[in-house]
Structures are given as C-alpha cells and as structure tokens.
C-alpha cells in the first residue's frame, strides 16, 4: 500500500529490500503508547497487532454559568478544543523477510515497559520465537491458531460493516458487500491454508472443527510447483489465470460427445481432472496444468464445504486462508464451485480483513482483561489500507503490495452500538441510498465533488485553528492524505466496503481527526449560532401568533429553511460565503413551492389533527440556524401536543443544544441523546445502545429524520415499524437533477408502516 511509501507506490517494490528504513509516522504508529502485543506469523506474511491510545483534539462547547451571564457579555457558551484519549487497535501486515527490521524498529520506539508478554500464533510462531524474545525482551506466549482465527472472525463480523462480501467476477462491481447481520452465528468457516479446516462456529466461545481436507493451498502450491517448475504461489495463480483447463481435463463431452442429459450434466463439466494427461506422448502447457489444478482443488473444497454445510444445516459459509486472501482467481473458482454444488442456495462469502483474523484473535486473547468485546469498534479509514484487488490485469499498482506494508486500524467507540429496534427488517436494512461501488456514474460525480471541495475544507480547517501550532502543515498533510484516499477509491471503490457518500464523508472526518482538525466548521457554526440565537425569540413569537393550521405549515417550512443552511453542501457554502447576510427569511424564499418534489404534507397535516404521538425520536444536525430556528420550534410544538421528544445530536455541540433547549423550554419531556459520531449521515443499524433502550421503553411511535445526509444520502428507503417523517432540502444540483427536481427541491416523506392506516404518498423517482 502506498501509505507507507512514496505516493507513487508502483516503484516502491523494486527499491525496497530487507534493510529498508521504516517511515515511523506511517507504519508503526503510536508505539510510544503501545501495549499488549500480538503476532501472527504465517508461511509468508507476518501480522503484528498492538493496542495504543491516541490523543486527539475535540471541539467542546462549554456553557457559562448563566447566573453570571453578565460577565461574558452576550455569549452563552464558548468553544474549547480539548484533548481526548481514545483507544486504538493497530494491525500491520508485512512479509516475513522484514520481521527482523520490524522487531528492531519496535524495540527502538517502545517506551512502555509494562508490557511483558507477546501473544503469538500461526505456523511460523515457533520458528521466530527466539528472535522475538531476544529482540523485544518479551516472553512469547503461544495461542492456538484456530481459536485465534475464530475470535478474530467474530470480531470483524461484529464490528466492521461491509466486512463480508460475495465475489462476482463478471458483475459491474466484483465485490458485493453484505449488510451487517444482527446475528452473526452460526456460521461455517472454511480455512484454506496448506490444508483445509472446516469449522462450525456457534457462539463467541463455541466452535468445532467438523471436518477438513488435505487437498488445500499446499496441494496447489506443491503439486503446482512440481508440474510447472514455478516456485511462487502468486506466479502459479498467474499461470492459472491464463490457462485453458479443457486441454488437460476430461470433460463430460469428451466422454459423451455432448452432455449427459438424463443426469443434467452439461458437456463442459469436468468428468475427470487431469484425465487427458494420462498419456505419455503429449506436452501440456504450464498455464493449462495450473488452471486444471486450480479448478480441481477449488471444486473439491467447494464440494466438501457444501456437504458439511448441508449436514450441519448452515447457510453462511466464509472462506479464508492464504489460498483465498484476496486473490480474485481463487475467489472466483470457489464461488463457482459453491454455486454449482448448492445450486445457488449457499453463497460463498469472503472477508475484507481475512488476513488479519489470526492476529486480531491472538490480540484479543491477550487483552481479555480489557474486555474489548464489550465495546464497539470502528474501522479507521485514515489509518487502514483497505482491500486491494490482487488481480494483476485489473490494477497494475497492486503488485507493490507484497513488498510493502498493509495496515488496519480500529478505534474504540465511546458507546456500544446496536441497531434501532424500530427497523422493519433489520437484516435487509441498508443505510445508504446509492451504492457508488455499483453506480459508476454517481461514483465519478461524488469522487469529483469531494475532490473539488477539498481546497475549501483545507481552508476552513486552517481558519478553525488560528492559534494552534503547525496548522498549515497539518492541513496540507490532511489534503494529501484525503486526496490519496480519493485516488485509491477511484481505482478500487471496494477498498473499504461499499463506497457511499457516507463513507466518503467518514473518510474525510477520519483524515481530519488524524491531523487534529476535529471540526473545521466550528468557527462558522459559532458565528451562525450567535446570529440564530439572536433571532430565536422573535421567530418563536411570530410562530405563536399564527393560527394552528398556518403554524403547522410554517413549522415544517422552518425546518426545511433551516436545512438550507449547510456548510458541508457545496452549493450552499458558496452562497453563504458570498453573502454572509443570507438570512433565515431568505432561505425560506429559496425553498421550492408546493407541491414539493416529494410531498406528503397533506397526509402529515391530517395526522396532526389526530391524537398526539407518544414519543418522537428526532435525528437532527448539530448546530446553527438549522437546529435553533428550524428544529427547536418544531420540537416545541410536539411537546405542546403532549409528545415526548428524544433528540439525537452529535457530540461537539451537545452542550449548546442542551443549553438552548433545556433552558429555553424547561420541559421534562424533552430528552437529549448524544450520538457517537459527527457524521451528517446516519446508520440506523449502529446507534447508541442507550437510545435503543429508550426507544423500547418509551414506545416510540414517530421517527423524524432531518437533513440531506440523514434522510437522502442515507435512510431514504429505510422502512420503519412506526410512523416516520423524512425531511430534507436538496442542496446539490447533480443530485436534484437525478431525482428529477432542481436545486432546493424539497423532500417531505411521511410514511406509515403497512398494516397501520396508510397514507400513500407519491414517491420521488429512484435515486
């Protein structure tokens, strides 16, 4: 991966040798705080894991004690940048050849002296035991390989969305990522190392090797090397990808002259692998033999996996091991085999971080006292290399991979995340509206859009920290890192799972955090808040003067107008920047007149005439005109109807909102819940566990989702088991165009789940 070398990584393979100097700030990061080491040494690759703590800055809003308000002038609050410490897991993968260099490097940079033990697993662990103990002065503690593998597998399946994928060679996007399943057990793990182990996993601690086969990766490699005089595994795969197995294999049609119709065996089916090579007087090409061997082994493993899946009645089958490890060739043949033998009933699943499972598991074994499984973890897109296609013809860059370092970093999240109990069908819920991995046109647009906006973000980032050191340099590093991520994603959209607008935003946030820019918009938001707060009372008063019917509409228009204010959306930030006086009233004028692009207002209005909702859950933005002038008056109205309201707000501005809402309204029925992220998008399958409890306890019967990120980029199609309101103004002309609307078109979607009295509302054209 290019992160660890020069930007142009294609050249790095040839220049790297065993005496490389490691770029410390890129590879073994945060070694100063590192503790709990684990290492997984395989046949050719070493995976090192450690735990560290990362200090980074967070913007916190601090309220002043309002009894002493006078002393601070008009300001109700101030923004302070605070240091926050979070836990991070680091996983680094490199070739065994570098192991000594790496150990030396770690020794030189390791400060923490408390660490006494390194957990080790993998076939090569005993071979390097002495070296590790001598170099690091740590005692090597061996852990069972399969136990580590399963632990690692459970961990990634639980914590990394889009971890598992189906491979489809000829589809538009070869990787089809699976939704995170609410329940990951039971599953079958087929580990194809030198041999094959088939393991049934029933729970975190319960698993059993139900079978295996000696025909595995070692057979492909060993037999392949004998047949083709080719030494390396990768080269064998390359040979195989060019070969014609029909020259070596005896097909059904070679025996029958056609198909064997009565049994439904097609003519192209292999009747006997290597059946044509049973002759003395013929030469076979290396490519053809390698291909035949690959088919033979893949089919055999697929067949056995299916037989075991059937006997044990399991439908989720994950494949891993060095035979698979991201190789499109083997993923394709295994997928083909599984499809053939199960007639499509079972899908072969692969994992993005398959190579790390052993190291993750060994690490978890050593970290049991920290209870890592009690937390939720998230993949850090800034620090992780992402999945590379190893297909040689697809991406010429990828060859650099074997000579370099691959990384995975995971951050411990402040809260344990669970799915919203109100999802109608949690297993089919997909947060993102458009999968950019599959939609090439949209992908191109959004990648361009984010790259185009990058300069602006850099500028804001610099402006947000006028008094901090090295702001310019850090901002520049951020620019480089994010631009490089965007470039990578252009070539490998599947690198971090399905590419979506949400993941592009998250990646940007991770990169910003990486260089200590917790909120580039904080200054603007502050300015905007100040203006909005001044206008707040007046706005409320004028609303109160309206008749009930008029007021209901004005409140919705208010939320929508507030939504026009969005510094993240380029079209809006352009307008706002050129005209700082652009006010709330002006925003209202920009709004599309009814009928809106998606217009369920009449149904909503009818509903309001009925009994009040018991409890509403409101997903809102975190600051500014939007929340102060749009959301709060609307919440006031709901409260006055007798509805309990839970508002879900991101961290940074939590206290500000508390201040305004609680002090302004003084209502016991209004509760605020802090979300774990500052993303403008929303994944309803990963929400604070506390919120889920509240939703269940309070019998929430209305979910309101506001904003383009939450209601359009994500959740547009989300089906809930209670009434829902999705409101947003489209502030992107390309997207507006796609939806058949125009800039500032309004989406007002009110949905009642089937079964309850349904008001059908015209839906917008599909995104």
């Amino acid at each position: 991966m290019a992160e660890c070398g020069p930007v142009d990584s294609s050249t790095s393979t040839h220049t790297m040798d065993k005496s490389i100097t490691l770029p410390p700030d890129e590879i073994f990061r945060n070694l100063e705080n590192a503790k709990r080491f684990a290492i997984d040494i395989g046949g050719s690759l070493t995976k090192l894991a450690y735990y560290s703590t990362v200090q980074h800055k967070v913007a916190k809003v601090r309220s002043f004690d309002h009894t002493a308000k006078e002393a601070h002038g008009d300001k109700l609050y101030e923004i302070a940048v605070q240091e926050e410490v979070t836990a991070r897991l680091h996983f680094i993968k490199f070739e065994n050849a570098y192991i000594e260099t790496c150990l030396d490097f770690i020794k030189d940079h390791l400060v923490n002296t408390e660490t006494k033990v390194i957990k080790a697993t993998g076939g090569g662990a005993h071979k390097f035991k002495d070296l590790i103990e001598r170099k690091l002065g740590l005692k090597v503690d061996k852990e069972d390989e399969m136990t580590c593998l399963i632990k690692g597998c459970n961990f990634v399946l639980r914590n990394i969305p889009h971890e598992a994928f189906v491979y489809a060679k000829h589809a538009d996007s070869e990787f089809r990522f699976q939704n995170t399943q609410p329940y990951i057990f039971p599953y079958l793990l087929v580990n194809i190392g030198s041999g094959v182990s088939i393991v049934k996993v029933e729970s975190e601690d319960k698993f059993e090797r139900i079978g295996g086969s000696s025909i595995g990766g070692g057979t492909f490699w060993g037999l392949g090397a004998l047949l083709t005089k080719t030494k390396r595994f990768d080269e064998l795969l390359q040979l195989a990808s060019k070969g014609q197995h029909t020259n070596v294999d005896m097909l059904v049609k070679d025996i029958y002259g056609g198909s064997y119709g009565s049994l439904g065996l097609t003519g192209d089916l292999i009747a006997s692998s290597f059946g044509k090579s049973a002759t003395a007087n013929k030469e076979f090409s290396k490519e053809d033999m390698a291909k035949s061997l690959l088919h033979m082994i893949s089919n055999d493993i697929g067949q056995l996996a299916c037989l075991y899946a059937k006997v044990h009645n399991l439908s989720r089958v994950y494949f891993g091991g060095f035979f698979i490890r991201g190789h499109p060739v083997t993923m394709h043949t295994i997928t083909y085999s599984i499809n053939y033998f199960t007639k499509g009933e079972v899908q072969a699943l692969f994992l993005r971080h398959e190579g790390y499972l052993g190291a993750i598991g060994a690490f978890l074994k050593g970290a049991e006292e920290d209870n890592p499984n009690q937390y939720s973890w998230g993949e850090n897109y800034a620090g992780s290399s992402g999945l590379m296609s190893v297909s040689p013809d697809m991406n010429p860059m990828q060859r650099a991979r074997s000579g370099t370092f691959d990384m995975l970093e995971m951050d411990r999240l402040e809260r344990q995340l669970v799915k919203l109990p109100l999802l109608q069908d949690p297993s089919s819920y997909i947060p993102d509206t458009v999968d950019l991995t599959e939609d090439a046109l949209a992908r191109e647009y959004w990648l361009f859009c984010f790259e185009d906006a990058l300069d602006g973000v850099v500028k804001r980032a610099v402006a947000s920290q006028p008094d901090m050191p090295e702001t310019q340099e850090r901002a520049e590093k951020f620019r480089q890192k994010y631009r490089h991520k965007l470039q990578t994603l252009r070539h490998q959209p599947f690198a971090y799972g399905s590419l979506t607008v949400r993941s592009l935003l998250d990646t940007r946030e991770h990169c910003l955090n990486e260089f200590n820019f917790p909120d580039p918009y904080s200054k603007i938001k502050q300015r905007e808040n100040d203006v909005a707060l001044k206008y707040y009372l007046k706005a409320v008063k004028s609303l109160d003067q309206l008749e009930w019917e008029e007021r209901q509409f004005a409140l919705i228009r208010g939320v929508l107008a507030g939504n026009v204010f969005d510094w993240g959306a380029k079209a809006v930030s352009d307008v706002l920047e050129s005209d700082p006086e652009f006010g709330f009233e002006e925003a209202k004028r920009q709004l599309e007149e009814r009928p809106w692009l998606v217009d369920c207002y009449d149904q909503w209005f009818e509903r309001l005439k009925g009994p009040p909702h018991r409890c509403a859950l409101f997903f809102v933005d975190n600051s500014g005109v939007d929340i102060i002038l749009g959301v709060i008056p609307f919440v006031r109205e709901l409260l006055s109807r007798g509805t309990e309201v839970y508002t879900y707000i991101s961290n940074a501005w939590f206290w500000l909102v508390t201040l305004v809402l609680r002090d302004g309204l003084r209502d016991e029925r209004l509760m605020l819940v802090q979300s774990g992220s500052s993303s403008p998008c929303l994944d309803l399958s990963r929400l604070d566990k506390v919120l889920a409890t509240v939703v269940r306890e309070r019998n929430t019967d209305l979910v309101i989702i506001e904003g383009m990120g939450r209601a359009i980029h994500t959740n547009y199609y989300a089906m809930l088991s209670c009434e829902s309101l999705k409101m947003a103004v489209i502030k992107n002309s390309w997207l507006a165009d796609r939806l058949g609307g125009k800039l500032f078109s309004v989406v007002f979607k009110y949905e009642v789940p089937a079964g309850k009295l349904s008001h059908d509302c015209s839906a917008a054209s599909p995104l």
Partner: protein
Amino acid sequence: MDKAKSMMDKKGASGPFHVANGQRSFTSVTANGACSSNGDMHHLHRGDEPDCTGSPAKRSRLRRRTESVRRNRPPFPWFGMDIGGTLVKLVYFEPVDITAEEEQEEVENLKSIRRYLTSNVAYGKTGVRDVHLELRNLTMCGRTGNLHFIRFPTQAMHRFIQMGSDKNFSSLHTTLCATGGGAYKFENDFRTMADLELLKLDELDCLIRGLLFVDRVGFNGHPECYYFQNPSDTQNCVKRPCTLDNPFPMLLVNIGSGVSILAVHSQDNYKRVTGTSLGGGTFLGLCCLLTGCETFEEALEMASKGDSTNVDKLVKDIYGGDYERFGLQGSAVASSFGHMMCKERRDSISKEDLARATLVTITNNIGSIARMCAVNEKIERVVFVGNFLRINTVSTKLLAYAMDFWSKGQLKALFLEHEGYFGAVGALMELLKASEDL
C-alpha cells in the same frame, strides 16, 4: 428361499451365500425360469424351474414361456459393452452348450469371433481378457456358457470399430448393447464405419443391474463381495468374503476416470447424489505428468514402492505431534503435496513417493466425499466399484480404513471382485431383456 438357504448351509464349503432380496429383481429378468445360473447355483431357483414339483397347469405355463424365450432369444454373439472415458469394458457370453446341429448352422465369422476371443488373453497391443474374472457355466436365457471379461483403452475404439467392419460384424444381425459415454460419442462411428446400430443404455441403470446380477450369481461358487476385517489395524487387516444380504440401501461409489456416487434403494430406485472429477483419470493423469509413467499398472507399481509421507505434510510436521484441540492425529495428512512447496524437497523426491502420494490423495478424497454422502443420505453401507480399484489394494484398504476410522465404525466399506465390469454386464442383460420383451 428358506429351503434354498438350508441347502446352502449344508453345503457350507463356499460359505454363506444367498440372494434373499435379489429375488424379486432377478425374476424380472428370468421370469420364465429359463435363465438360470450354473450348477452350483441352479438349485437356488429350482422352485421356478419346469422340473420341480408344481401343479400341472403351472408346469405347462412355464413350458410355454420357455418356448417363447427360445423363439425370442437374440441371435449370437452376445455382447455387452461399456465405453468409458478411459477404458472400454466388454463382456462376451460364450455358449458352451452348442449342439452339433447348431454348430453346423453357425456362420463362419461368428465362429471366428468366438475362437478369437476365447483362445486369446490379449488382443492387439492393448486389449486384455481378465481370465481370472471369467464366470464359468453360467446360464443365461436358457443357454449355458462362460462369461468373459475383456477391456481395452477407449483410445483404441476406432481400431475396434474398424475390426468390426473388417469382420463384417453387421451381417450377424446382432444388437450391440452399449452403455457409458462412448455409446453416445461413438454411435455415429459405429454406424458409418461398421454399419452397426448401437442400442444405447444409461450407464447407471446398467451399473446397478449388472452389479446386482453378478452379486446374485456369485463368482464361480464364491462370493462376489468382500470387505476388510480390522481396517484400522494395518497388521491385522485381512480381506474377507461376504454377502450382500439385503443389498439396499447402499451408497454405490463408482470410481472410473471420474467418480459417481449413487444412493441405491432398489434396482430401479436410485439417485446420483454427487460426483467428483478427482478419480482414476486424475490419478493416472497426474502420475504420467509427475513420473513419466505410461500405464495404470506402472503407476500402481511405483506407488506400491513409494512413501507418501515424504511428499505430504502431516499434522505432526506442523504441530510436532497430534493437534489435540481438534482431535487430529499427528499421522493424519494435513496437506497433500505440502512438502513439495519447498524446493529442496522437490529436487530430491522420488517418482515412487510421488506416485504413492497421488494415489493416497485421490483415494482419501474419494473416501471423504463418500463418507459425507453416506451421512447425508443416512446409509451405512458403502460399496466401492470401478476400475480404479483394479489391482489396487493400497486404495481398497485405505478406503476401508477411512470409512471405519472417520465414522468411528459406523460405516462399512464393501468391494466387489468384478470392479469395473458391471456396466458391461448390465448392458448384456439389457440385450437379453430387450429380446424377451419383443
């Protein structure tokens, strides 16, 4: 049947041997009782025969049927052919009850075919008659004769057809019953080159029919079927004859060039459960590439002298001993050809070791798949047939071991002496049945 059994028991010498459940299907072929097996066997069926006690009406009915069979009996020569991917299996019924009158009428080329086939044990460069498998004094369709078992490589098929043409085979007006894929592939060649029409038959139908028939008639007074006693103990593992009493259900594993696995619940009720392309063809194909050998015999000869543990990586090679966490013995193969990942070991490996490893790999894999199928189908008896098992005690013993060991004694592996010839026998039976149905 009870009577028959008691007589068998008295005889004792040839061991327990009966046909209990084969009876129903047997009579479907030999409804009139005219077809019977040879001396040792004929008492089994004498309840059906004209000379046994029975009402006069029944006797006359039987006589009429015998007449009809005689009229409709197909003309000689009687062949059954199974054209596989690698080998052609041919069974030939040589009548030994030819009357002088018949002999005079017999056309010259029919006579010459009989003489050619019965007086030779090898035909051309590659044809072989498995003399040791010959079934003597067998009665089929009221005729007594010897059943000969001949094989030659499928590659020689065109030469064979040419011979049929040269000998003017088509003038004999016999029906050539053929099964196996080659019946379809070469059908047109038979027609155009030799003016012969094939009666094409399904290979799995033939396999099951032939297998049940041969098992029923036995192997010249001995059982057709055998198993290994103490399969998990190499020192004391011995081959033992046995009977297929109540043959159903059985999992039938036919190992030819490729492998077909059938769950057989009765002669007509069976399904192909699965198959694998790793079969006899794979063993020979890989051996030819790895060792430069040319024939199955050569490959097996080498394999018998080799040691696969120099090629395969065992559990103990990885874990230093047993992998206790998973109950894997140190001596179990962890990775077939796993040692060959290492160049030094590749450079010093012997052909014999490679041949042995290939044989062990293919055999274990078939055993593994067969075992899973048996579990899935809930069948405990696994019958292995096919020419891969010919002169291949390494594989038969290994399969017996694998079935026993991995199922903890639940599954039993059975083998049959006529390994690969059942399809051809089944084809011959179709010839006789087809004529009967006229």
